[in-house]
């Protein structure tokens, strides 16, 4: 379970403090899949960072008793001067995993072949995404954070990701952030719309979708009951 209780996140800017998340409370249970929609800059990625623990809330409480992944297919943690193999070794060390077993899996999944011995710097963005996703799959988490995964890679890569994530790990919790609303609809049972720091929850996709569209198109839109 992950529980947010009255969580606020404020970033200081040159024009004063900007409230990105305003009094957010919710619970994500084991195995539950929550899809979060919202326009650019609504705070989706901030939400992901708070859940992942990479950042602390300005105020409020975040409680969790599940292990939480880093944002999937997130390649930012690569040391690009190092090879794909070195990066696998680094992650294996941090999470105390068997390096050789992991390397075998990454080789098989990423289909990078001999490129694994080359510096990540020389990879194309598709190759990086494949490596990042493969590395994300070597550690087993109770909850996976998925931030715009459908934006990278080709069809074959997407198919493999589908199998790894939604077939093999159907019992895990997931927090999915995407602009691809069909992706969200296909994989989540619960939905939320982020708008102006507020977060509204729905059990029904169509209701969430409508609010999301209104938030995007109606000027000065505000949630009905907030």
């Amino acid at each position: 379970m992950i529980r947010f209780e009255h969580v606020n996140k404020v970033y200081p800017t040159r024009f004063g403090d900007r409230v990105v998340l305003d009094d957010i409370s919710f619970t994500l249970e084991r195995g539950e899949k929550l899809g979060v929609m919202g326009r650019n800059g609504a705070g989706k990625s901030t939400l992901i960072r708070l859940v992942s623990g990479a950042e602390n809330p300005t105020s409020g409480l975040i409680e969790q008793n599940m292990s939480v992944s880093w944002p999937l297919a997130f390649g930012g943690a690569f040391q690009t001067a190092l090879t794909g193999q070195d990066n696998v070794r680094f992650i294996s060390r941090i999470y105390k995993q068997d390096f050789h077993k992991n390397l075998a899996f990454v080789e098989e999944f990423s289909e990078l072949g001999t490129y694994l011995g080359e510096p990540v710097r020389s990879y194309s963005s598709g190759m990086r995404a494949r490596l990042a996703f493969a590395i994300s799959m070597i550690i087993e988490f109770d909850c996976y954070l998925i931030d715009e995964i459908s934006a990278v890679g080709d069809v074959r890569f997407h198919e493999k990701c589908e199998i790894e994530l939604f077939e093999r790990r159907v019992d895990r919790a997931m927090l999915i952030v995407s602009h691809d609303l069909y992706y969200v609809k296909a994989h989540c049972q619960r939905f939320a719309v982020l708008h102006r720091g507020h977060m509204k929850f729905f059990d029904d996709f169509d209701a969430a979708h409508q609010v999301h569209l209104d938030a995007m198109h109606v000027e000065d839109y505000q949630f009905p009951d907030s």
Partner: protein
Amino acid sequence: MPQLGAIGRSAAIQGRVIHALLMREILTRYGRHNIGFLWIFVEPMIFTTGVTTIWALTGAAHGSTLPIVAFALTGYSSVLLWRNMPARCIHAIEPNLSLMYHRNVRAVDIFLARLLLEAGGATISFMTLSLFYIYIGWLEPPNDLLEVIGGWLLLGWFGAALAIFLGALSEKSELVEKVWHPASYLTFPLSGAAFMVDALPTRVQPLALYIPMVNGVEIVREGYFGHLVKAHYDLPYMLICCLGISFAALVQLRDVARHITPE
């Protein structure tokens, strides 16, 4: 003892993380080309040898009867120890921000990995050169090895605390880097590397001991040369300095860690 168990588990995780960061750092900095990780201590060795040679050739006035090689080795090695650690820790967090997505990696681990690498390099360089000079007969073995180690550890503590303090502070203000560069060069002649306190005018001696590094270098030299030198140092003052800076470092680190924002 459930608490002890929890602390043990946390220590094991932190040890693992620091090890992983250390190996990553070594590979990133030195790669697998030519002599690879040996650069960790070959680099400071070249530095020290160069300075030793220049001082020996120019017959630098150091105001004591010590052989110049012994004087330069102890002096310059000490400088490398306390000066390189802050240099490596300033702006160390920013390029590693994305590692914060791994829950067990914390700002302090990034600092500790770099400190281990720098302190390790300086120490191995000091030891290797000492053994070499002793072997070829330019240097007598240390008079009191434990005192050398004690002085070295004090200098290391001072450098490490200063490094974390400046490293954390540099995340808040870019001035730190700008100021540290000239400051580290300007304090070099004041640090005791190039003089013994005993050679200073009597009136200046107490002032020199206000510089923490001077105390550390004097202890190292007393350990090395015993009665050949008359060392001046204020151990309680040095300890209080180290404790004070350590405290300030932890306060800054805590504050910075709380406000970390990865991309």
